[in-house]
């Protein structure tokens, strides 16, 4: 009971707008083979496979059984989880629980998506309740725009502040050969981009991408058997608060009308477990699931990196840039690459690589502790902390 769990193998494809050269099974296999090679093992060295995506993006029912040829799951225990945008981080957490449980020593977790194969907005729209939300509501952008409008109304933040985040993410991505978008943008570029749904502009949004990511998670009993230094999962948590789109806004009886209580509560849960009281100082790097620019302001407040309303000041100070106090998304983040099922897992992968010192151009010096978040439909929040040191005991 309660084994400590380490990441010992990382594999990812390059995130691209369109990968017509591979079908879904093949893109999964690219990441899987990369992870196996990184861990120095063959398929025989896997005890179970956990895999996730968002069904309607590829239109494959029972995806986990469909993809065994590529996932490495042939004649092995295979399970699928799917939790919308958080799917990627969910996969890391599922692998964590599977190994911590003691039932499996070595679990391969996979997140992937070929967003090019479907109408992303059309698919996302099906997440919303068919009676009450779907007829009046469309896709992810509008939902985020509601939040952004509320935030601008509540605080002194401006669209330009949000644009800073957009520029930062894309600039970071220039150091990451795996990222999808490699754009050198300015604040003016963001501000001049067309509005999608006020105040969200094209430049404020994430792309949609094709890509896959696979990680090998192993028990403390075996973590030293691998060529790469193990990266230890310190704590994980998730929270979900809403069923209908309008739930969180101005409804004091639901989490005091705080629509991102889920991120606050999930992050406090892991902070308590690990002893984080000052995230800005204590984390050396953060890979956060920021699907759009305004998130890079507001959600920093939810994560306790600054006080309420302090997002713009924090970000504009350069604290979250490369070289800053706690660089956020050296990988370029979700705003540079968004193969949805993979996206959360790529955050975990990049923090693991940061801790192992293998990030090359995007390496942050001396990384010992990293924060990861995942985000999804109706403000589902996953939070993970990864670190160089083995935790004293499994904190879950």
């Amino acid at each position, binding site marked *: 009971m309660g084994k400590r769990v380490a990441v010992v193998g990382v594999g990812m494809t390059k995130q691209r707008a369109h990968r017509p050269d591979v079908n879904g099974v093949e893109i999964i296999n690219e990441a899987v083979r990369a992870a196996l090679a990184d861990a120095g093992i063959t398929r025989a060295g896997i005890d179970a496979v956990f895999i996730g995506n968002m*069904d309607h993006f590829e239109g494959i029912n029972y995806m986990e059984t469909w993809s065994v040829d590529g996932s490495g799951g042939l004649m092995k225990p*295979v399970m699928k989880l799917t939790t*919308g945008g958080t799917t990627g981080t969910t996969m890391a957490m599922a692998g964590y629980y599977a190994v911590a449980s003691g039932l499996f020593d070595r679990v391969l977790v996979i997140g992937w998506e070929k967003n090019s194969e479907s109408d992303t907005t059309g698919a996302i729209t099906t997440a*919303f309740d068919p009676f009450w939300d779907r007829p009046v509501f469309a896709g992810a952008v509008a939902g985020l725009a509601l939040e952004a409008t509320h935030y601008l109304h509540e605080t002194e933040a401006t669209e330009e502040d949000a644009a800073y985040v957009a520029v930062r993410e894309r600039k970071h991505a220039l150091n990451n050969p795996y990222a999808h978008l490699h754009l050198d943008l300015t604040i003016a570029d963001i501000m001049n981009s067309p509005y999608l749904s006020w105040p969200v502009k094209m430049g404020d949004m994430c792309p949609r991408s094709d890509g896959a990511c696979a990680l090998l998670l192993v028990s403390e009993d075996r973590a030293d058997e691998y060529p790469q230094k193990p990266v230890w999962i310190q704590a994980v948590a998730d929270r979900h608060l809403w*069923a209908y789109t309008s739930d969180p806004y101005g409804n004091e009886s639901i989490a005091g009308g705080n629509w991102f209580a889920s991120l606050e509560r999930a992050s406090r849960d892991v902070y308590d477990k690990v002893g984080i009281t000052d995230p800005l100082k204590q984390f050396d790097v953060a890979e956060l699931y920021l699907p759009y620019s305004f998130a890079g302001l507001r959600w920093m407040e939810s994560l306790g990196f600054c006080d309420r309303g302090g997002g713009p000041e924090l970000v504009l100070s350069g604290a979250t840039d490369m070289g800053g106090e706690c660089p956020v998304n050296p990988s370029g983040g979700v705003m540079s690459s968004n193969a949805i099922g993979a996206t959360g897992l790529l955050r975990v992968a990049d923090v693991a690589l940061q801790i192992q010192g293998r990030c090359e151009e995007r390496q942050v010096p001396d990384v010992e502790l990293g924060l990861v978040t995942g985000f999804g439909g109706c403000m589902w929040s996953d939070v993970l902390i990864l670190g160089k040191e083995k935790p004293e005991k499994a904190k879950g």
Partner: protein
Amino acid sequence: MEPVAVVGVGMTDIRKERRTDSFADMIFEAVQKALGDAGMTIDEVDNVITVSNDFFDGRTISSMAIQDACGSYNKNITTVEGDGTFGALFGVMRVLSGSYGTTLVCAHQKGSESESRLITNAMFDPIYERSLGIEAITSSALQARAYMNRYPVSEEQCAMVSVKNHGNAFKNPIAQLPLALTVDDVMASPYISDPIKLLDCCPLSDGASAVIIANVDRAKKITKKPVWVKGLGFCCDAYHLGDRDLSEVASLSQAAKAAYAMAGISDPAKEVDLVELYDAFSYMEPMWLEGLGFCERGEGGELTASGKTAMDGELPVNASGGCLSGNPVMVAGLNRIIECVLQLRGEAGEHQAGKVKTALAHGTNGPCGQSHCVWILGGDK
């Protein structure tokens, strides 16, 4: 494996169509029942696993529909997409990890709200197979044919399974389809795809269920009748139907082997008192019984014909009526677990199949039983 128990169970009844209820209504009912059964409040649930399928529900992130109803507010919650046996297995992992003392697992399904055959067609590869129109029934027919060609199992023997299970359903108040059938009735029912006839098939169903799993310390506090998880196993075979011999049961045998090893069972026929398996089609019952090691390969039909698998037989199989009597797809495996729990507690009422000390629950995912999950449950720790 550390001791982990099922401490609460709840099932809505299984019906063809539940127009009065939304998914959330059904889940609320099942969860309330499970909490009531365990004598717990929702606050004592440490984390939640939901089980549903985005295709059947016509909804991306299908779990969103039931977040309020399953009490997931401000809890750690995730969604397994796959038969309920897999979801519940993940729920066990959550408890074994040490992070949680209790896990609530709930599953929902409304076969009535969608066109099942279009949905099962969607499990086939879009480039190579889907446009052929293949779906669950026609693909299973390929397997049934391979099975009956290879082994001396007949359509009549499979018909006996339908007769038995629909008959058992009279004694199960939640079953959808109690039917008084004869083998002739089944044989005379129209063929959908040879050799599968209408009465060889499970129906379309609506329903929801929930189980609460607890570690040993919490289980002791919660209930005097914990049912212990003795063994678990799951395994997935090849995907393309032509990659494997459809008459073989390799992944089932492997899953069973893992579960038996964990449970310390070497002779299932002797050591297991009762089986609840996933009989989506009548031929699956003898076939899965063989894969589970209750008889030799090819003897599943004979085992059925002998009467041993009747409710009052030596090895009652699907005393609940099985999936043939009601199959809310994602929920069906969870129901197999729940039926075993009731039997082990001696609480199965009219369909109680004698004294049960060790029971086996089984679920499956993917076309033609590609992936299987096996649970061994016991009354003693």
